[in-house]
């Protein structure tokens, strides 16, 4: 009898120890976690299921380009923006997959800016910004196993990466926020450019790199399987400027090729670089820098794109 009691006590202590460890581990992980602008993605994943009818996905272009709050206030569309900085198409595929399973949106809009990049992600940091916010589950595991090129363990256990932040913690690291602040997705600076941008001739096309094309096709297939409408889009930027040794002209030629694919796949393709006049877009006032929209530009694009989304939702 005493033996049984002793053993029960030992088991109870072990359970208590493990429970306390889990609490402390989770708490300290939350404090140490890198809070970046991609924080929004984590908050979106924690929203109740089926909260959104529109999911916006892709890199920072759409992150700073289309605001769910504008879509809500102007068109009463419940949307979320899952974009993170330099989110590669393979990463976007898993984001879209998670969002479709979680929220069953009617429309998914994917920005095509990263289609020129031939690798699975730009840098491990960029992959972290997206994947670290994923809830623990099948899609996260699949994404890491599929895409992580460096040590996969650092993506499964964020602690390995973020524990070193102990010496740069600030008050905000200890603050628990449930809602994300959409204003953090707005750029309030302006870099004026001449209004001399002319989109590339649509006849000029280049082959799309294999890896992003493969994952874009997976998104197309996934949307078809789940009866989700897919819109492929390009948010305006100075696509005549070279970026990271890649010419803007090359990027535009890729978009032109994707338009051809989109027709074959039966997917809607809206390159907003060809809608600048309709939006009343002004490069003098609407760019934060050559690549991202500022507050003024993003309002114009949000309203214009929101109208398109509204039409699609109603039809």
């Amino acid at each position, binding site marked *: 009898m005493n033996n049984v009691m002793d053993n029960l006590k030992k088991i109870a202590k072990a359970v208590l*120890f493990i429970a306390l460890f889990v609490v402390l581990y989770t708490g300290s992980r939350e404090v140490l976690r890198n809070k970046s602008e991609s924080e929004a993605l984590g908050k979106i994943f924690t929203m109740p299921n089926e909260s959104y009818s529109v999911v916006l996905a892709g890199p920072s272009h759409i992150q700073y380009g289309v605001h769910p709050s504008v879509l809500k206030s102007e068109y009463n569309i419940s949307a979320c923006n899952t974009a993170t900085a330099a989110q590669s198409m393979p990463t976007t595929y898993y984001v879209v997959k998670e969002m479709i399973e979680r929220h069953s949106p009617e429309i998914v809009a994917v920005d095509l800016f990263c289609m020129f990049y031939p690798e699975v992600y730009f840098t491990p940091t960029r992959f972290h910004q997206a994947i670290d916010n994923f809830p623990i589950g099948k899609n996260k595991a699949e994404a890491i196993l599929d895409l992580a090129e460096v040590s996969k363990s*650092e993506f499964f256990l964020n602690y390995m990466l973020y524990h070193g932040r102990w010496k740069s913690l600030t008050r905000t690291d200890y603050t628990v926020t449930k809602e994300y602040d959409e204003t953090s997705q707005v750029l309030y600076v302006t870099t004026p450019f001449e209004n001399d941008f002319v989109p590339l001739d649509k006849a000029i096309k280049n082959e799309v790199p294999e890896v992003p094309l493969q994952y874009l096709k997976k998104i197309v297939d996934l949307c078809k399987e789940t009866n989700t409408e897919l819109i492929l889009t390009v948010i305006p930027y100075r696509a005549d400027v070279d970026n990271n040794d890649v010419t803007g002209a090359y990027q535009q030629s890729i978009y032109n090729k994707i338009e051809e694919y989109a027709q074959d796949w039966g997917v809607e393709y809206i390159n907003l670089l060809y809608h600048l006049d309709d939006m009343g877009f002004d490069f003098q006032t609407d760019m934060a820098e050559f690549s991202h929209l500022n507050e003024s530009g993003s309002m114009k694009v949000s309203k214009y794109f929101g109208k398109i989304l509204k039409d699609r939702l109603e039809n």
Partner: protein
Amino acid sequence: MLFNSLQFLIFFPVVALLYYVLPHKVRYIWLLVASYFFYMCWNPKYALLMAFSTVSTYTAGLFISKCKATNWKKLWVGLSFTVNIAILFFFKYFDFAVNNINACLSAWNLELINPSFDVILPVGISFYTFQALGYTVDVYRKDIAPEKNLLRYALFVSFFPQLVAGPIERSGNLITQLRERHYFKTENVANGLMLMLWGFFEKLVIADRAAYIVDTVYNNYASYTGFAILIATILFAFQIYCDFASYSDIARGAALVMGFNLMKNFDTPYFSQSVSEFWRRWHISLSSWFRDYLYIPLGGNRKGRVRKYFNLMVVFVLSGLWHGASWTFVIWGGLNGLYQIIGDMTKKLRLKVSSAIGVRRGNFSGKLGKALITFALIDFSWIFFRANSLHDAVRIIKNLFCEFNPWIFTDGTLFTLGLDRADMFVLLMSLVVLLVVSSLKYVGINIREKLSEQGLWFRFAIYFAGLFAVLILGIYGPEYDASQFIYFQF
């Protein structure tokens, strides 16, 4: 597979759990499989070398026990040593030997040797070779009956907790335990895990943090002088201690979780009052191996003073060579031998002088003084151990004495040596913790035993403090160059 890797954190619980779940009869086979898997994670091919070493020493053990004539026994011991040392020599010292031969040949303008193969040192070869050879001698001396079960003997040679960096176990201790039945005991598990946690603290919080300064200064010694070199050299003493002791502690802890008691490898060495005492407290399993299997057979101190000094020098020069195929290690070993010879020669004189000037050697200050002098001597020898070459070592010593620059403590230079203020603070605090723990050990307090007598909340507080100190303050993760344990290279 490194102890401080995610793989090990998965591997070890699985091995330990299955060890207790499996029937006793097959447990050693499970441990053998796990040990070979552990070793093969580095390079599967080198497991063949370990297997060869195992079979050769096992066979020698059997023949030694069966032969009646001493000469035949000696022959088998000699054969076992020759074969295994030859393998060790080839993999560890071949390049060193060729380089030195070439240096001599070039001095005489002769054609140089240019071997067509590149030799890579198999991890842990020095450790398991010495352990296996120790067994051969133990059987020869009839200290232990030969192990007839080849698989159990193979486990003795390859037991994964201590396989690649010791402690170099004695057959009398480990083989006996491999034959015993181990029951699950929560005390063993708790004590073992605590020992492992302490090991991780030493390695990840202290050793790898100190390494930043040591590497910065030693790899760019031309840019540093005076106190910068002194700080790096003192920190290297703690780095190598924490690095090596941590491996031993994790090894002992992991073994204890499964019910095995491995020998203590370190016993507060930096509190030693003399260099010879230091060597009784530092890497005890290797020091005692050299004492039992080399120093004593050479005659020890039984054949007169000159022979004793000769034996000491042989042991320490070979101990230096055991650590690495480089003249820096030979000098390091030789220096430690020389310290002891000079210490022995001047012992009477030192006693006379100190009593003449009224120095009390038995009080705290006297002991502290001796410990500091011993530390200074040992730390000086570490310069040769850490320097990348003999030339570097000499330049580092020159730079150490060429400038008196105490301003580095106040003008911010201190924080440009590889660690910022926050990390420097953590390093200092960790060293204070190390000092407190070592002091308690030194005065004979068993910390784990004392801790187990405390209330649950207090124990948990200590456990979690240790655990999260390692998790948060430890140097690991993607930016961390999975810096291996220093002693792996030996």
